[in-house]
C-alpha cells in the first residue's frame, strides 16, 4: 500500500533536516495523520519498522497522532465533525462544507541528538 511510499518520504525529509541540524541519531518521530487521508496508522508503523534500518533512525520511536475530521459549513458557518462520511452540514444540511482538519499528513516534529 501507499504507506510504504509515504514512509520513504518521511525518512527522506528527516534525513535532510537532521543533516542541516547536525543531528546524528533520531530518537522520536511524531506524525499527524488526518482521518481523511486513507493512511492507516498500523500500516505506517509497519512501513516505518521496515524502512528505518539505518543508523539515523534505527532506534527511533514512531508516534502517530490521528487527527479527527472537522468541517465548517459554508452556509451557516457552524463547525461540526462527522460520524458518517456524508459530508453535509449537521445543522442546516448544506452540501457546501469545507474541511478544516482531517486531511493533513504531517511530520509534526522529531527528537534527536
Amino acid at each position, binding site marked *: 500500500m501507499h504507506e510504504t511510499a509515504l514512509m520513504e518520504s518521511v525518512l527522506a525529509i528527516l534525513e535532510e533536516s537532521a543533516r542541516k541540524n547536525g543531528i546524528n541519531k533520531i530518537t522520536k518521530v511524531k506524525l499527524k495523520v488526518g482521518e481523511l*487521508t486513507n493512511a492507516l496508522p498500523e500500516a505506517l508503523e509497519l512501513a516505518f519498522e521496515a524502512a528505518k534500518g539505518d543508523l539515523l533512525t534505527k532506534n527511533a520511536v514512531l508516534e502517530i497522532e490521528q487527527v479527527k475530521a472537522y468541517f465548517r459549513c459554508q452556509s451557516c458557518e457552524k463547525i461540526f465533525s462527522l460520524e458518517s462520511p456524508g459530508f453535509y452540514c449537521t445543522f442546516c444540511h448544506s452540501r457546501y462544507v469545507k474541511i478544516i482538519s482531517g486531511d493533513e499528513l504531517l511530520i509534526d516534529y522529531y527528537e534527536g541528538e
Partner: protein
Amino acid sequence: MQVQLTTNILKANDAIAALNRKIFSEKNIFVMNIISSPGAGKTTILEKLLLKLPPDIKPAVIEGDLATTKDAERIENTGVFALQINTLGGCHLDANMINQVLEKLPLEEINLLIIENVGNLVCPAGFDLGEDMKMVVLSVTEGNDKPLKYPVIFREAAVSVLNKIDLLNYVDFDLNQYEEDLIALNPDQRRFYISARTEEGLEPLIEFIVEKVRAKKGGE
C-alpha cells in the same frame, strides 16, 4: 533536541507535481488522471473514447500498471501514442514517475494527456501528478457503497463516471443512493452514466472532455 517541522509528508511529490503542471500549462496540454478499482472498465472506456475524438484533439496516454503491458497495447491499437509505466507492484503513480517519462512523450504534438492510474481507489487519491482533473470510474458491478467507502477520491474527482449501466437490471445497484452520496461528497462534480460496451452515454462525456481541452488550448 526537538526539531519542529510541521512538514507535509508529500511535499516532495507535490513539488514535482507542480513542476509537471507548469510544463503541461506551458504547452497547453490538458491532463486527466483516471482512477478506479481494477475491472471498472477504464481501458475499454479509453479505447472507445480515443476513436471518437474530433481531429483537433490530439491525445496521448500514459498507462500505469503493476507489471504488464497489456493495456498499453490495447491503447496503441487505436492508433494513439501510449506509454507504459510499470510500478513494479506499487499501488499508485507518483509525480516523479510522470516527470521521468515526460521526455518520451510527444508533448509538442498533443493537447490531451490521459493518465490511466493503477487500479486502486485508495492510494492514487493521495498523489498529485500535476493533472488538471481527476476522473473516478466506478462500474455498477462493484456496488453503490463505494463512494462512501472511498470518500477521498470521490470528493477530489471533478468528474465521476458510472460504467456498465447496461447491466443495471442484473445487479444490485441503487442508483438513487449512489447519486445522493456523490452529491453529498462533492456537489460540484460532473457525473456521467455510461456503458463503454454499448457506447450509451459516451457522447456527453466526450463532449465534456473536448470542451476542457479546447479551453486549455486557449480557443485557437
